[in-house]
């Protein structure tokens, strides 16, 4: 996740590339999930598609706003009016990222439940977003809440691995552990900018594992054919 003020100078721009990579990976999985849903009619596959789609969009939004911020700062760094615009862009980018990431995560939580009651999904989103926006520090609350939700999801994926003993399940659990580590790094990135870079690296590892799992599933199938 990129918020320009927490980023070391040498990493500005690189974070945008990272976020675009995350978005592409997530959108590829989301498209597959929607295709699989269309064929199988399994609602849980649709929810995972929505989860990845929303998280993917959150990265696209963040990368666009970060790009605009860098472009504006490069153009006119000393003009007060433009600095205000930069601050506004940063806020817009930040809040849209928070909202989309949270909704995506809640879809992933909802997919783990047996309930088909849509109101539960609405409730989860309301509780999460209200907690974030009514807290004194939105960012800290966002990272803390994301970490708690990721711990729950890791529990779900580990439990799944213990039941089925499949390597694919273990890969997904590992990917979410890396996502959790990245969120914890971002939590500390407000005081130490090196954690911002580390957070991105862990996030990249997480999404690469998710992509590798996706590739593995398809490769095994094409071998069988």
């Amino acid at each position, binding site marked *: 996740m990129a918020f320009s003020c927490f980023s070391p100078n040498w990493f500005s721009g690189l974070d945008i590339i990272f976020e675009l990579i995350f978005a592409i990976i997530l959108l590829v999985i989301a498209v*597959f*999930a929607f295709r699989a849903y269309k064929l199988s009619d*399994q609602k849980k*596959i649709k929810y995972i598609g929505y989860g990845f789609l929303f998280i993917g969009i959150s990265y696209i939004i963040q990368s666009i706003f970060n790009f605009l911020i860098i472009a504006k700062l490069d153009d006119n760094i000393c003009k007060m009016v433009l600095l205000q615009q930069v601050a506004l862009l940063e806020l817009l980018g930040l809040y849209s990222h928070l909202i989309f990431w949270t909704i995506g995560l809640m879809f992933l939580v909802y997919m*783990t439940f047996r309930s088909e009651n849509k109101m539960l999904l609405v409730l989860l989103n309301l509780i999460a977003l209200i907690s974030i926006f009514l807290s004194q520090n939105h960012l800290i609350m966002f990272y803390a809440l994301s970490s708690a939700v990721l711990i729950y999801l890791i529990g779900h*994926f580990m439990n*799944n691995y213990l*039941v*089925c003993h499949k390597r694919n399940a273990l890969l997904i659990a590992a990917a979410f552990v890396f996502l959790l580590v990245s969120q914890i790094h971002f939590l500390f990135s407000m005081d130490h900018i090196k954690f911002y870079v580390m957070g991105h690296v862990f996030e990249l590892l997480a999404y690469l594992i998710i992509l590798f*799992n996706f590739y593995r599933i398809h490769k095994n199938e094409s071998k069988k054919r």
Partner: protein
Amino acid sequence: MNRKRDRLEIIHDILYAIKEKHGNIKPTHILYKSNLSHQMLTEYLNELISKNFIVEKVDKDGKRKYELTERGYAYINDYSVIRNFVDSYGLG
């Protein structure tokens, strides 16, 4: 194995039984192959027809037979990939 089959697997078993018989399969044979109760099978067959996975044909003796549609074949072809994807995320 006493593992309970999920919907994804039951639908695959029904469609696979139809595919094996090249569209010349009676409901009783599907019942035997898919290991379902009569009521459950009827519900699944009606759903599969309504969602265009299979078509029902009645021969001159009045006997019902089932054939896979293009969507039915696509489901069987992509089943393993979808199955592994679903299992990866513990959605089964």
